[in-house]
Each structure stands twice: as C-alpha cells, then as structure tokens.
C-alpha cells in the first residue's frame, strides 16, 4: 500500500508513458498516494516526446511497447536528452531494452508491486537531490555503468 511519505521536497513531477489505459490510470492513483504528481499520460511515442518536451518532467516512467510498436526505446532516448528528466523503464519486455538502456537509469519489471514503484521513486528522488546514500531497491534493475 502507498506509504504516501514523499516529503514536499521529494514530490516528483512524473510523466507516465504507457499504452494500457487501465495500468496508466491505476499507476496515476498510486503515484498520487505516494505524494507525487502525474503531469501527463502518453500512449504513443509522438505524444510522449511532445509531452516530455513541453512539461520537462522530473521522471518519465516508460513502457517499451506503446500503441505504435516497441517505440518506448526511442522515447527514452529522446526524453533523457533533457538532463532535467530521469527516465525509468517500466515493462514486461525487459529483453528488448538495449545494453546502453537508451539513457534510462534502470527498469522496473512488470508485473510490479506497489512497494517496488514506491522505493524506486524514493531512490530516484535521492539521486536527483544528490543524496547517494540509499541502496538500489530490490525489484529495480539499474542500468549498467
């Protein structure tokens, strides 16, 4: 269950890139429970890249498979060009992720548990704030290097 403990300074503005409407909607509720803000939901690569450019979110949670095919990889590459955005894959298709992770910092494997989403976002918030103390949460696979 959501811990709802994201302090005001660690509340993240999050873009959800997910073609499955039900998953996206539930994820939005979960992020809200955790004290984060969903700034947009995109189901296609074009939407995702446009929303990313206009919103400059803190975090983008990106599924590999979108409405227009396995284009989540391109989305990750495009969004991570903006240094303000941290990209995390969220997919049941981790085998499709290239070895350089297309600029993403890691992957949450589907089907995920709420705990892994919560602890991964805490970890991302710490990294962004320059606090590196927290160990990488289990259930989250970091990009190599």
């Amino acid at each position, binding site marked *: *269950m959501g811990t709802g403990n994201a302090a005001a300074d660690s509340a993240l503005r999050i873009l959800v890139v997910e073609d*499955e409407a039900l998953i996206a909607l539930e994820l939005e509720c979960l992020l809200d429970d955790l004290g984060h803000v969903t700034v947009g939901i995109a189901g296609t690569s074009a939407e995702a890249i446009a929303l990313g450019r206009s919103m400059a979110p803190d975090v983008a949670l990106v599924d590999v498979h979108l409405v227009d095919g396995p284009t989540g990889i391109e989305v990750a590459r495009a969004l991570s060009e903006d240094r303000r955005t941290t990209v995390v894959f969220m997919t049941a*298709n981790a085998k499709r992720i290239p070895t350089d992770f297309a600029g993403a910092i890691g992957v949450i494997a589907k*089907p995920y548990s709420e705990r892994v989403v919560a602890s991964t976002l805490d970890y991302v918030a710490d990294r962004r704030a320059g606090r590196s103390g927290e160990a990488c949460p289990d259930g989250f696979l970091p990009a190599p290097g």
Partner: protein
Amino acid sequence: MVITDARAPDNPVAWANEAFLQATGYEAAEIVGRNCRMLQGPATDRATVARIRAAIQAAEPLSVELLNYRKDGTPFWNAMTITPVSDAQGVAFYYAAQADMTHTHQREVTMRGTNDELERLVDARTHALSAALEQKTALLHEVDHRVKNNLQVISSLMLLKARRTPEGEARDALQGMAERIGALSTAHRLLYSEGDCAHFNLGDFAAEFLADMNAGLDPERHRIEADVEPIAVAAAMAAPLALLIHELTANALRHAFPDAREGRVSIAARRTECGMHLTIQDDGIGLGAAPPNPAGFGRNLVEMVVRQMRGTIAWRDGGPGTSVEIDIPLQPAA
C-alpha cells in the same frame, strides 16, 4: 612399362611393353624414338611435369601421378615410378613402371562430391533448425510478455475498483484479490528471469514476497519472517505454491492478531527426502480462540491447492498461536 635412352637426344622411348601400348592406345612404332611428353595434354599439371624433369636431370628416382592422354585423346591418371639405371659412365636408361589410376581418381572425386553434398545438406538442416528455434524463442518471449502485461492489467483493474469502493467488506475483498494476483505476479516474474523455463526457486520467491508483504505492515506491530531454502521446484508448481504461501500468511495476519495485538508470522521451508516441508506459524490467539469464519474462503483455498499438489496439511493449535504444517512431494530434480 617403358625404358628410355638417357644418352640419346631428348631421352626418347627405347622400348615399351604390351601393357603400356594397351593403356595408351599407341603402336610401338608410334612411341619408340619419341619423348614421353607426347602423352601430355591440356589438363596435365605443369608443376608435376617440372618435378619429373628435375628428377631426371638430377638422376633421382621419383613416384608421381600425372594426367596423360591416350592416342584417341581421352585422359587417364598415370601413376609412375621412374628409376635411373646407371653404368660406369653415368645414367644409361630410365626405367618407368606405370599403373592406370583413373578409377581411383574417379572414386575420390565422387567421394568428395558426396561429402560436399552431405555437408551442404547438414548446413541447410542446421540453418532451418536454428531459424525454427529462433522463432520459438521469439514466441516464448511474446507470450511471456503478454502474460506479465495481462497480470498487470488484472491487478490494476482490481485496485482501481477497490479505490472506488467505500471502505468495508467489498473493498477488503477486492484488495485481497489484488494481493493474491500480486503473489501470482511475483511467481511469474521470477519464472523466466534466470533463463531456466522449467524451474522456479522458492527461496527467491519467499524473499520478494516477504518484502512486498512487510511493506504493507506497521513494523511496530507486525512482522513476517522467512527461512526458506533455495528449493528448485517445477515451473508448474510456482503458481499454486505462491497462492498457498500468500493465503496462509494473509490468513494469519487477518485472524491471529485481533484488537491491535502484536505478533509475528514465520514462513519456513526445507527439502525433505522426497519433497518439501512447509511450516507457517504465528504467535497469535490460536485457531480455537478465533471467531468461527462462515465464509472460510482462505482455508478452503489452501486445502484445495494442497490437494492439487498431492500434499498433506495439518493445522495445529500451538501454544501460542497457530501452526500449519504442509508436506508436498516433489519430482526428483532433473
């Protein structure tokens, strides 16, 4: 058999036997007085000819095979042994014994052809098999991806409905279902992660399950502990075992600690001679003290799953708390 005159100009044939005349198709008169190079033709190997010339100049014996031509123009493989015969003044004659090796050569060529053909067939078959395997692997990944994605969709559906349901029995039931699906999801996520599609590591499952369950508990009051050996079980048992462990743990948390009672649930599993022994224990109020539960879905589900795995189950009112002991037979590890 041929004898050549080493002292006459151009080393001509001095004598040829009947076998040689038959093999080449020439009359003795057409051969005697001429150099043996008259038998060479367009496909005769020049390097072999050079070796023969060098041996004759050096007066050394030599054995070679050379493609020669009969009078009618047909080629034949001529295996020859050339031996210099010397007197006091030096080499007087060359003596050459011949054999027709055409059939041997033909066999070799045919054999090489057959080998090449076999290798080509093996290559083609290997290629077809790799392509088929690649296709099957891609299909497995696709199905695996779809199952995982669908589990996520089902779980999202349950949780969305739970969020929109007022607090109470219905909402608890929906959340309970989402939790069961969560346990199945954990099992499924671990199924193919190590590249071994046939086995499932119960120890890995217990570690993830424990972390997920404990995240939802108030650590001051309730705690779940596990001591589960890394037992490899058949993939088909992953889902029932995940459901079983989840159900017993959730049951204990739901019924053993009423009225803000504090407590612990422990999960232990170890290998036995012909299977595994699973213990789930709590230090709560015990079976007898809990109010009767008319729905009793959890206990029903547990007994059903144990039966499905051909196991046995014993519920004990242990002092204190409840202890559930389960024995499940396992196929010997492959």
